[in-house]
């Protein structure tokens, strides 16, 4: 792997501290799941790791300031921390509560909301999921129709949200709901938080074609929600939702995760093969491998430039779009090549075949083919790559 420029000695020291902590404290069963590229970790495993990080002075919430219980890190520290998590096979952070709702409440929440909600995220007591998409409103999010009407001191919610990741693990959902109309469809949308144990909520599991359960449809039938669960002003939630999604878009470039996947592929490529050729000695494989490595390096340096470097020159908004597009494209390339690297073995549906085989899976990357199939989702979600291109065309290039 190509090396990248060092940070300051203090920051590199910080990196070593973080690395050592992760290596010494990450439970092996969790590390294994992540090393197999699984995103669908059981709640129990996520909470266990979250609490280990919590004990380190709020490392579980790396972007949170100290007065909310976070470590109060600089951008560079957060960046390095995230990289070390990835490169040492630690789980992704609990994105919906920690990465999205928390920082959104810092900006838009009332005192009461911050006091009521943030501690449970910090402690890992409450699991959140994100309800934006609806059956008829995907890319065109602002057309959403899940209704929110006033009913005394409560709101009544009717309709459904779809593709809700982790709703089956979550306690609460936040999202955007239609509370009124206006000239523009972005008007009359409210940002609301709903307890999933409320009467009238049902959750239907949806299966992904490679067999995992990650997403759901959440139905709301006359669900009553206290008014204090609106974030910001009712009817003006669009701006809040946009802000929250911009937080996600940086994460979904997954550059450091892809670096970790590339490290796994590298191990495979250089592994000796008894009676055969190493993968890297195969010209066609090597060419594809090198191309990915070059692109990934360019992407990593772009990420550093946009996230940490001179931000005055570039629009951060479209920078996130760029990173998301190229990040997920390169991620797909890594997963495709990792799957194809194992020739006939890649055809085997390990989970549905004999379990003994899992033990001596020669590639130690779990079921690489399943991962390849599963990660087809990344160019679709968090604003599809097509929509991200529209954003760059419009906001960066002024084309419309």
């Amino acid at each position, binding site marked *: 792997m190509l090396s990248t420029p060092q940070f300051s000695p203090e920051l590199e020291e910080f990196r070593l501290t973080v690395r050592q902590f992760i290596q010494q404290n990450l439970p092996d069963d969790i590390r294994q799941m992540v090393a197999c590229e699984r995103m669908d970790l059981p709640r129990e495993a996520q909470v266990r790791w979250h609490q280990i990080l919590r004990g380190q002075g709020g490392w579980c919430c790396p972007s949170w300031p100290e007065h909310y219980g976070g470590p109060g890190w600089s951008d560079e520290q957060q960046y390095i921390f995230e990289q070390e998590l990835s490169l040492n096979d630690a789980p992704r952070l609990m994105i919906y509560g920690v990465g999205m709702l928390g920082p959104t409440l810092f900006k838009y929440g009332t005192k009461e909301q911050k006091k009521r909600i943030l501690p449970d995220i910090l402690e890992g007591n409450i699991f959140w999921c994100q309800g934006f*998409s609806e059956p*008829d*409103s*995907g*890319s*065109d999010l602002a*057309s959403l129709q899940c209704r929110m009407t006033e009913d005394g001191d409560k709101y009544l919610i009717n309709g459904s949200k*779809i*593709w809700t990741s982790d709703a089956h693990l979550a306690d609460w959902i936040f999202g955007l709901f239609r509370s009124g109309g206006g000239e523009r469809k972005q008007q009359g949308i409210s940002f609301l938080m709903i307890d999933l144990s409320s009467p009238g909520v049902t959750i239907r599991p*949806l*299966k*992904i*074609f*490679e*067999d995992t359960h990650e*997403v759901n449809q959440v139905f709301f039938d006359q669900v009553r929600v206290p008014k204090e669960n609106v974030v910001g002003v009712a009817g003006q939630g669009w701006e809040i939702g946009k802000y929250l999604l911009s937080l996600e878009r940086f994460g979904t470039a997954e550059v450091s995760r892809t670096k970790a996947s590339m490290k796994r592929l590298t191990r495979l490529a250089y592994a000796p*093969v*008894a*009676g*055969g*050729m190493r993968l890297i000695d*195969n*010209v*066609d*494989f090597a060419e*594809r491998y090198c191309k990915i490595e070059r692109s990934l390096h360019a992407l990593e340096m772009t990420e550093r430039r946009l996230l940490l470097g001179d931000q005055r020159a570039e629009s951060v908004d479209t920078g996130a779009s760029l990173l998301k597009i190229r990040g997920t494209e390169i991620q*797909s390339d890594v997963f495709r090549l990792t*799957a*194809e690297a194992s*020739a*006939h*073995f*890649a*055809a*085997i*549906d390990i989970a*549905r*075949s*004999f379990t*003994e*085989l899992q033990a001596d899976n*020669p590639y130690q990357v779990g079921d690489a*083919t*399943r991962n*390849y*199939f599963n990660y*087809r*989702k990344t*160019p*679709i*979600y968090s604003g*599809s*790559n*097509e929509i991200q*291109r*529209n954003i760059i065309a419009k906001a960066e290039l002024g084309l419309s």
Partner: protein
Amino acid sequence: MTDTSLYEQQSLIEDSARRFLDHHYSFEARRKIIHEEVGYSTQQWKEMAELGWMLLPMSADYGGLGGDMALVSTLTKEFGRSLFVNPFLGSAVVSTKIIEESDRESLRSEILDGIGAGGVIVSPALYESQVRYDLDNIATTASENDDSIVLNGTKTAALYGNVASELLVLARSEAEHKNADFSLYLVPVDQQGVAMIHHRTHDGGRMSDVLLNDVKVNRNQILLRGQKTLPIVKRAIRYANASICAELVGAMEATFEMTLEYLKSRQQFGKQLSSFQALQHRMVDMFMRCQLAESMRREAARAIESANETEQDMIISAAKCEIARSALLNAEEAVQLHGAMGMMDEMPVGHYLKRVFTLGLLFGDADYHQNCYRNMRVQASE
């Protein structure tokens, strides 16, 4: 020039296959079938034999229908359209083409009759994982004693080994490892020393690893031996690849059609998705890849029937490499353009991705064929 009688035969096969599959193998029916123990419907397998499909790849000399690839690939293209998974490729195509070349007359006709009638399934056990697709360097050995031959080695990707009664085992003589002396054996699955691990494949198919531990075979089980062995096996593999190309093209066409349909029916931003020019261009690219793939499918069929060996080899490698890559790319695009719906198990589109990925791996993946093509090109004269 189109040969009208060939054209008519193709239409007949296409019609009967499409009718059969529409009737018996809807996406819903398929979901149940692939999760059953053996992975396909034995009842349907019988009906396929009654329709004469098993005889299509087989030479007329042995009771088959001649093995014209233009016809076989018409059939397998329909299989591809419907995501039809079954032992046809392994048994009726590869094993048939290898067994046909054996000079052991009685054994040959007995097995070919069985395959043709659908009652016998023979699984080719050729590949080994450490050498990927490179048959020249397999490690399974056949060591000859006075009255018997002993096989040792581990085979992979034996298609539908779970339902085969016999395996075709490719081995090399232990003595001369360099100047290879290959041979091919008919080995009943219950022969002492044979163990199998059966797997499900991502597309709902089945394949097995075969462990051969001091398997004693007798001379009657030798189907091929000597210099001609490997060329015969490779010819059968070319034939199989021409058939796979057609399956891939069938799958590409179906994926293209369902994606086009989807974009026309789904609305976002108050318009049909199909009205966005960015997506129109993506569909046009998919369409063009389908067209070129269809031409290469026909070209592969033509090469099987007419070209000389070297040219055949190059065309098949070119076709497999190009079609496998295009099919995978189109399937990825199809999923992408369906949005989150494309990730759903209940939608066919993701299952096409699984199918073309898996099919692409069999009998040499795109990288392997690219490499073969390059080697042949370098060796050829200007």
